[in-house]
């Protein structure tokens, strides 16, 4: 049972299929409803997304947090409709933008949504930008193709955008090529390209992972400014807890293709409702822990072709009990106001209940995995997921 409910229960809104006339109901921009995605590879079927649901409102920043292989990038790609198909297939669920299920749309229609309404910024701007065309040309392409503008007008718009994202000397640099910019500048160019047509939703897939810390801060600030200016909904995909803390309104934590916790940022950090979240937060080194061993979640995310029975996190969970290994995976349910978690023991976790026992420590987890090899520790499926998430070729 998820919190998001389809528009069938709400008043009908007339969706005009003309440019820029998508109207969000009650400020609800995007709803992902029980999304399922599979990857059919030569070695088997990997369930990359297993029923993911969340909502995004106008002006809201939703952070999707997770390790490599959790399915966060795949979710973004599925929403955008740029999943590599084959081998990826959307096998269930809906993605509703302003009430309309965009997964059911034709390719043509989908393309009109991608770019003008929902757009995306990628991680590695150097490989994400076409090396043989000038940056001005690439930004202007949005106007030429979606708004049927002529060359000079679109170029002017591109320069204007470059100025907005604070690229110095924009008029001259529009003719330059991607490799002639620094990493931070390139990322700004990508952002300029993404916001060109004033989209309602911006998905940023690890936008700062490849950048220096100071540049990171600048880019995040830019994103925040743009969001405020244009009332965009921002989905921030990352594995960096530090980045998230500053900017996110709501956080969805993903593991093995599922959302395992969803809550307002502050509440999540204050008191995690899922052992995985707790593990992530505990693993952040703190100054007052000096001298103690760093805690980490033992083991690795599972091979998506062989997800363990029961709760997918159970082999690595410090509180795992029999019910976790045997019963079907706990559904994402409301454990407190505006908070969802997918764990049998969330309520206990929330209040630090003494009833909650630690059943295995990190060392035990690792020893157990090595001994039993329930799933290959270096998951080949994991490799693939990572490959998909980065979208790059394995190096």
């Amino acid at each position, binding site marked *: 049972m998820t919190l998001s409910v389809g528009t069938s229960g709400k008043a009908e809104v007339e969706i005009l299929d003309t440019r820029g006339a998508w109207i969000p109901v009650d400020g609800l921009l995007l709803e992902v409803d029980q999304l399922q995605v599979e990857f059919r590879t030569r070695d088997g079927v990997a369930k990359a997304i297993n029923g993911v649901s969340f909502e995004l409102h106008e002006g809201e920043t939703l952070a999707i947090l997770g390790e490599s292989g959790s399915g966060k990038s795949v979710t973004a790609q599925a929403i955008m409709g740029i999943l590599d198909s084959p081998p990826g297939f959307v096998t269930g669920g809906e993605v509703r933008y302003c009430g309309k299920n965009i997964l059911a749309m034709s390719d043509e229609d989908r393309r009109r949504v991608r770019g003008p309404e929902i757009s995306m910024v990628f991680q590695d701007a150097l490989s994400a930008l076409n090396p043989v065309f000038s940056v001005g040309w690439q930004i202007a392409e949005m106007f030429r193709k979606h708004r049927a503008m002529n060359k000079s007008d679109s170029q002017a718009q591109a320069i204007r955008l470059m100025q907005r994202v604070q690229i110095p000397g924009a008029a001259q640099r529009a003719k330059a090529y991607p490799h002639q910019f620094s990493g931070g500048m390139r990322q700004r160019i990508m952002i300029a390209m993404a916001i060109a047509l004033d989209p309602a939703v911006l998905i940023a897939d690890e936008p700062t992972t490849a950048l220096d810390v100071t540049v990171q801060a600048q880019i995040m600030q830019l994103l925040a400014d743009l969001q405020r200016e244009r009332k965009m909904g921002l989905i921030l995909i990352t594995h960096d807890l530090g980045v998230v803390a500053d900017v996110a309104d709501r956080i969805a934590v993903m593991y093995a293709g599922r959302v395992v916790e969803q809550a307002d940022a502050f509440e999540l950090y204050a008191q995690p409702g899922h052992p995985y979240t707790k593990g992530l937060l505990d693993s952040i080194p703190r100054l007052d822990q000096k001298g103690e061993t760093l805690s980490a979640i033992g083991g690795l995310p599972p091979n998506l072709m062989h997800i363990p029975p029961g709760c997918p996190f159970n082999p690595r969970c410090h509180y795992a009990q029999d019910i976790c290994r045997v019963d079907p995976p706990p559904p994402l349910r409301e454990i407190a106001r505006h908070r969802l978690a997918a764990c049998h023991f969330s309520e206990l976790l929330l209040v630090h209940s003494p009833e909650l026992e630690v059943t295995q420590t990190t060392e035990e987890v*690792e020893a157990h995995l090595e001994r039993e*090899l329930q799933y290959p*520790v270096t998951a080949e499926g994991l490799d693939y997921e990572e490959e998909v998430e980065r979208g790059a070729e*394995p*190096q």
Partner: protein
Amino acid sequence: MTDLRGEPADLSSEAIVPLQVDAASGPEQVVSEKALETGARSLGANAWRDVRGRPMFWISLALILLFVVMAIFPQLFTGKDPAYADLSKARQKPSAEAWFGYDSQGYDVYARTVYGARASVSVGILATMFSLIFGSVVGIIAGYRGGWLDSLIGRIAEIFLAIPLLLGGILFLYTFPNEVDTPFAIAVGKVALVIALLAWPTITRIMRSSVLQVKPNDYVQAARALGASPIRVITSHIVPNSLASVIVVSTINLGVFIAIEASLSFLGVGLQPPVISWGNMISDASGIGLIRLAPHMLLFPSLFLSLTVLSFIMLGDVVRDALDPRLR
């Protein structure tokens, strides 16, 4: 088959070998080219598994084996004497007595085709070996030493590359022609040498870039710091890294060299009679009038030549696909 580090790999096991995860290290990326250094065993074993499932691999291997055996033991394939000519039978079509018919001078085409394998295959193998040895040594020296030596070698390589293969071959063999009385070994060796002389720059380039790729790595620095001699560093670290590309290129080159030898012989500068070469045979068979009258003279050596070249190139192709992790 030994894996690329020289340690015997267990290829009979089908199991995915789980790598050890100790607390200090993270999971290794198994499927990557760089893993050639750290996970050479896995890449070699994976490639073998991949390649043995492809029918093209076995077909090309079988063909190669066929022609190599034909080159070494032509007697196994025909009892006839390729040097025996019966003018009265000139240009006769294939029959039960002579499977490929007779040529203009009354030679048995089948016998000559079979014996022709020896020259072509020998040239191919020798040329490949020469270019491999010479090219590798030069390439390794250039990459390892660097500096002015590298530039010099680069320039010289460019000079040789400036002369297109066939033109150069013609030129060299014009200056040092094979005469009628040149013994087989010398004639073959000369042609092979000429081809190698023009082809070494490509091998050098591969080896050199391989050296440059491996040299700055930490483990190489460590080995050198520990006093390992350059020879040892080269053989243990650099050679395995480049083995994959070199194998593929050499295999394909073998096929190409055979084709070039045939081209040179066709033009009359390569192997001369009485040395039997497919190129010669095709040359003899290709006057306009002759083609009309006796196409069998042309067809059969062409077929054998093409199949031989094809098998080597096919093998190289298949192996390259298997070794290229990106094509999975």
